[in-house]
């Protein structure tokens, strides 16, 4: 049984189609990246999974059962826009959200305290939310999300506003939860986090799926046609290269996507050696960042061409 099965999901607002025939599956105990540019339909998709919105057509199965209001307690949802009652104390806040998910008052409070301790925040129990920093309220929000031990967690940009130390702490917590069998859907624009955490991904744009699969598989589909070079000297020679795409360049480092044959690689090496001291040259898999950009751009360009009738 899958943790989540999405079948031919469709939702429109007026003439705007937010999700169009979206289907994918999420395996139990995996961390699943839900990726896509702004306005791709991710939030609508998440709201349908969490039963906040009702799809026009299609099916959503959570642990084999259709989502419904009684299934909501099996999901922990951390929305992108955090919401807490400013004038409430931290522990009251956690208690209320826990109770809404069906916990008893006592259970909600004792679990809340344990989580505050786990996230190094036991001193905040009686602070009001308005006294908390952004990172602190982020942690409170996270606790409210996981308090009722949901088998499915949906985390939308869970690391925004966290410093590197706290982000690392949160990553460890998410990994721990995964090890206890929790399935995590992670929606973020930070591709490094996806590379670090996710087992599988789905990329959607304009309400449709562009690609899906395990991170390994998606990357290997693109082959090793990206080179990384590091050098000492001016990077002016990069501008003389033809027929390649420079994905990123910074002082002494460049990531280049080859468009075809291996001879291009030789030409690049020669140019680099002529003008600089070459330190490193390596064929790598493209980063998810690169895959994201090229796929989304390709679809957008294709649609524009289609509109002009040139295809």
């Amino acid at each position, binding site marked *: 049984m899958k943790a989540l099965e999405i079948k031919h999901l469709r939702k429109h607002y007026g003439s705007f189609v937010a999700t169009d025939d979206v289907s994918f599956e999420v395996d139990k105990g995996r961390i699943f990246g839900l990726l896509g540019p702004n306005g791709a339909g991710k939030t609508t998709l998440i709201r349908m999974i969490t039963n*906040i919105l*009702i799809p026009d057509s299609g099916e959503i199965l959570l642990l084999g059962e259709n989502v419904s209001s009684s299934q*909501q307690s099996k999901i922990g*949802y951390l929305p992108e*826009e955090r*919401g*807490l*009652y400013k004038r409430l104390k931290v522990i009251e806040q956690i208690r209320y959200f826990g109770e*809404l998910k*069906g916990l008893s008052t006592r259970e909600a409070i004792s679990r809340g305290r344990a989580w505050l301790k786990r996230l190094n925040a036991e001193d905040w129990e009686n602070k009001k939310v308005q006294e908390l920093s952004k990172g602190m309220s982020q942690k409170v929000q996270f606790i409210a999300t996981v308090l009722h031990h949901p088998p499915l967690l949906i985390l939308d940009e869970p690391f925004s506003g966290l410093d590197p130390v706290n982000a690392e702490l949160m990553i460890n917590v998410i990994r721990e939860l995964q090890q206890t069998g929790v399935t995590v859907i992670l929606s973020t624009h930070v591709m490094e986090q996806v590379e670090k955490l996710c087992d599988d991904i789905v990329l959607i744009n304009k309400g449709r799926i562009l690609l899906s699969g395990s991170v390994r598989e998606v990357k290997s589909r693109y082959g090793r046609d990206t080179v990384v070079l590091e050098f000492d000297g001016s990077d002016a020679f990069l501008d003389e290269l033809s027929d390649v795409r420079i994905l990123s360049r910074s002082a002494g480092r460049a990531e280049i996507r080859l468009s075809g044959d291996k001879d291009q690689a030789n030409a690049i090496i020669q140019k680099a050696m002529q003008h600089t001291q070459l330190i490193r040259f390596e064929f790598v898999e493209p980063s998810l960042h690169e895959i994201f950009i090229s796929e989304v751009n390709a679809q957008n360009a294709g649609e524009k061409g289609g509109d002009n009738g040139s295809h």
Partner: protein
Amino acid sequence: MDLTKVGVIIRHEFLTRIRSKAFLIATLLAPVGMLVLIVVPIISTMLTEETAKTVAVRDPQHHIDQLLVKNDSAMFFSTMLSVDSLKSLVKNKTIAAYVVVPERVDGSDTTTLYSSGGGGLMFYGKVEDAVKAAVRRQRLYDRGADTSMISVLNQEVSYTTKKVSDKGVEKDSGEALAVVGYILGFMIYMMMFIYGGVVMRAVLEEKTNRIVEIIASSAKPFEIMLGKIAGVGAMGLVQIVLWIGLSMMMTTFAAPLLRDLMHANAQATAHGVQAAQGGMPDFAIPSISPWIIIMFVFYFLSGYFLYASLFAAVAAGADQEQDMQSLQLPITLPLIIPMLFIGNIISNPDGTMAVVLSMIPLFTPVLMIVRIAATQVPLWQIVGSTVLLVATFLGAVWAAGRIYRVGILSYGKKASYGDMLRWLFRA
């Protein structure tokens, strides 16, 4: 509907509000404020009367000057000074005013009060009453009426009303009950406004803080809205009970104080001009029947749920505080309209206008309680208006729930009434 979740929401809304400082302050200060509103004018009237104003009476023919001075020697004194010197006395504020009585008082000649202006309405009224009473008395006297006849004319007339009902003939407290009806209607109006506004702001706060998305992932929008309205309503009921209790305590303590003050004041003016004033009507506090109280609670609850759900829908359509000002107009209008007619309905609670207006569901909570207190409303009207009100109330809650469900997740712009209508019918 998941009643456990509604219960959790009600409890949360109720407890966080009851525990807040704002609740404590409002609950304590409102009766104090009311008391101040009632007591301060009374005390201030007394204080202004303390600073007695003197009025010179220039009455060369001595028609009324002796009578005026006899009745209120603190205010009036007789004078033969010239008009010019009286003028200068007014200007340098030695006296407040002077009255010039014409040669004849039995015709249309005018008695005139001269003052520096701005003596206060009470002062003018007092002088006018005293002068008129004195002139009337003098006219009677001039026509040969003797003093005993004159005092017979001024004697108090005893008059009362009684009500004939199934229980026989009993004391009619219709006048007092009309006042009670007005107070009850006004209370329902105020509470629908105040607590409806609380619901409205709470919905918008949850929407703008994005809390509602988390709650919506735990409960149905309809449950959220209902829980919120019921929680605030419970807070309102507690507040009302506390207010009534506090007011009763305060009147127990304040009433003797007031009575003493008024008593002292009455003695001070005992030999004042009271000829033209009738005694205070015998205003006994009527016993309010349980029936009125039951209907009051019913109209409060149904009216509150009706309007609070409409307010919630408005707040769901708003994107920020200012949006609500314009969006709530169609709700505040039907709230205010009954208040414009409440006077007519009290003076004629069985008239066609009263019957028709009180049957309109949006007006029923305020107007029907007024009529129930003031008159014997036929059963068919009570049953009919209740059926209409309950139907409207259920319809409003349903419609508001539909609008709320879509509105709370719509960000970025204020919804139009057209948008809300579309939300109503969106699947």
